[in-house]
């Protein structure tokens, strides 16, 4: 279509044609899956407002963690510890609320994120252990600590205020979890697209040597994205705790895969340099949508796992097939 005017620069035509298609596949896929479920499951209450709001409630934690994961992947790193950190933070928060009230609970949760993130960041940037390994090890450590300090038992949260703000509440018909997701998503999007920090994150993942030559402290960038990721994971854990009115070490188990899948589905590159928070949020919603639809279809858990895996592979394959 625009080939005549760009004949002397075919690469640009390729980019306009393919990159847009690639970027938009997630949105198209989202709409297609939504329509399929709306038709196939209309008699099972898929379109019921309550069901749709439920999808948001179930997706919010994944979306919060995936927003931060977008930064980590964009900087060319990865964080596998997010699910375990969410579980640990839910436990520390619940225990601190029990001991000192909601405020100390919030502080304890955030502190958990900062401590874990600092470890991940220091090990990765100062000692030079690849973040894949650092965070894989941290996954076990965080989960283990959570089990140990909670004695593998759920820690109940009695504070109504806390449960309302972090998970259970709603403003009119809008669940508070949706608010968390949208506010953090919006901040995440603007910071990545519009600030010097966001640009440095993308530059670090896009070409680390070139970024360093351009005067960017790439180690500091990597450190910071890993801390951000752990803090987002801790916040997700606090949201889980608020929603379920308890902290449990099992919370967030396996979430790291959904979180990474959400980001990659949305168009963020596993190889760094390319990331979009809006895409990530839609990717997270898509995963929530698929889970919800498969449950309504009455599939067994085993079948759900298989179907979900297949759909994610298909979507990622479509979104990644460049050239």
């Amino acid at each position, binding site marked *: 279509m625009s080939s005549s005017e760009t004949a002397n*620069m075919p*690469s*640009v035509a*390729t*980019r306009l044609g393919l990159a847009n298609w690639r970027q938009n596949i997630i949105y198209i896929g989202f709409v297609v899956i939504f329509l399929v479920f709306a038709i196939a499951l209309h008699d099972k209450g898929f379109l019921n407002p309550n069901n749709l709001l439920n999808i948001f409630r179930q997706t919010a934690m994944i979306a919060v963690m995936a927003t931060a994961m977008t930064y980590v992947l964009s900087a060319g790193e990865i964080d596998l510890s997010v699910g375990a950190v969410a579980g640990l933070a839910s436990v520390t928060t619940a225990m601190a609320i029990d001991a000192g009230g909601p405020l100390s609970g919030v502080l304890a949760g955030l502190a958990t994120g900062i401590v874990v993130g600092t470890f991940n960041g220091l090990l990765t940037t100062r000692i030079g252990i690849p973040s894949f390994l650092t965070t894989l090890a941290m996954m076990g450590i965080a989960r283990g600590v959570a089990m140990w300090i909670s004695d593998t038992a759920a820690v109940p949260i009695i504070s109504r205020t806390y449960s309302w703000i972090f998970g259970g509440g709603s403003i009119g018909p809008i669940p508070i979890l949706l608010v968390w997701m949208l506010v953090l998503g919006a901040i995440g999007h*603007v910071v990545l*697209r*519009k*600030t*010097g920090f*966001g*640009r*440095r994150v*993308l*530059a670090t*993942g*896009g*070409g680390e*040597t*070139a*970024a360093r*030559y*351009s*005067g*960017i402290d790439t180690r500091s960038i990597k450190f910071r994205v890993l801390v951000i990721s752990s803090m987002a994971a801790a916040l997700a854990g606090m949201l889980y705790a608020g929603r379920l009115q308890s902290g449990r070490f099992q919370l967030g188990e396996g979430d790291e895969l959904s979180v990474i899948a959400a980001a990659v589905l949305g168009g963020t*590159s596993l190889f*760094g*340099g*390319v990331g979009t928070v809006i895409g990530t949020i839609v990717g997270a919603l898509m995963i929530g949508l698929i889970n919800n639809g498969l449950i309504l279809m009455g599939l067994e858990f085993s079948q759900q796992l298989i179907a979900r895996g297949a759909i994610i592979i298909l979507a990622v394959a479509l979104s990644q097939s460049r050239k």
Partner: protein
Amino acid sequence: MTFVAPAHAVAMRGVTKSFGGVKALVDVDFAVEKGEIHALLGGNGAGKSTILKILNGVYVPDSGTIEVDGVPLTEHTPEAARRAGIAMIFQEMSLIPTLTVAQNVFLTREAKGSFGFIDDRTAERRAKALFAMLEVEVDPKALVGDLGTGQRQLTEIAKAISQDAKVLVFDEPSTALSVADVERLFAFLRKLKAEGHAIIYVSHRMDEIARIADRATILRDGRHVITAPLSELPVETMIGHIVGRRSRGLSDVVRVETAVREPLLELKNVSGAVKPRNVDLIVHRGEVVGLAGLLGSGRSALARVISGIDPIFEGEIAIAGKAVMIASPKDAINAGMALIPEDRLRQGVIAQHSVLSNVTLAMLDRLSSGAFLSAERARELTDEQIAALRIKAASRDHAVRTLSGGNQQKVVLAKWLATAPEILVLDEPTAGIDIGSKSEIIHLVRELARAGKGILMISSELSEMLSACDRILVLSDGRVMDDIARADLDDPQTTGDDPVMRLQAAERKLQMVIQRALTRSEADHHVQ
């Protein structure tokens, strides 16, 4: 206009730098004025890249001083050099492919709009204005990853200019550029010069130097040889200074006339996707054929096509009179060919693996019985090769990484010799290795030829090529421009017993042939 201020743009005095025991630079003076294009010349290992890296803050000099615009540089870091106004135009090194042109130009100095948010529209406008001022066409919105080499280079230059660089260093900038892009680059360099920028220009292409540079400094073996205006340096004189009087080492390779036998490797009209183009070539049994030419002349591309790494586009390849289809490296190996690749550490060896596992890598099939490797036979084979090539390693189980460059290269050779190939293609077999190993490898090449192998050898070091080869093909722009018997390069006037002198005379002659081939191939290009 030209000399705006009395201070030199750059003045390096008495710069010395050693790596381990090797002196890379000895007491070198190098000064560049504002508003001049200053060529920096020298053969491989002359010290050009070392002095540039010192100027750029990558290396710290052992002694000597650097002044930029009259101000002494006290701190030797890339950051300090950049602040002083020195910009190195790397081949794509400082650009991020996933960002746009404008985003790259203003990286870390982004235009800010309301709320302190990045304003890419303003950056694009400013980049556009910058390119307009420089009178070049680059789309500020394009992704750098989508640009061609010429456009990337312009983006790098724009980035440097926007950072207020006063001294621009170009290291072989034209290598990857098309003829038209080179013209554009030159026009652009003249403009920068007129604006008072100092430009340091490194190239092996004498014709380019003659066209663009005002003065030249020539280094040889880490020492300053001469600095003079181009008007006083005709190409012959430049080559004379670059070649100079080399130390002995290679000249002890005695080339006995080997009996050239039947043709072993024949190429008819072979072309690759871009290079090589329509190459005809014959290597006989017992013959070493050299491929000479500058970077980008298509020597390595030809080697890759022959050995099945790059696809052949047209033409045919015959081995021992029989046409063969070579569509993959495996086909080439089965046909009796072995490529000793250019990039030793990436393509040649697995550096963290042992000598044994590297030497046996290409013939695992022949060392296995069933699914199992015979450790016994692998050890025997490795020990044979270590002895035959005199590889100096603590043991066959030590990682190749722990060996010296010369011994690493011998491991690569051992790996391929173990497969008993008929034809060897050697791409820069002695790059970055010490003179002792170098001459051992050249001896080995001669021995292999005497044993009836056919050898194709690429080297940028002409003295080495002259020592090893029976015949030299000169390539330019992917084509074979000349086919010269080694004996024809001997200068009948330079007789006498000194082999060093004879080698140097031949080297000067070959240099001239290469430069002429370049001019001719470009003339062809313009006609087309």
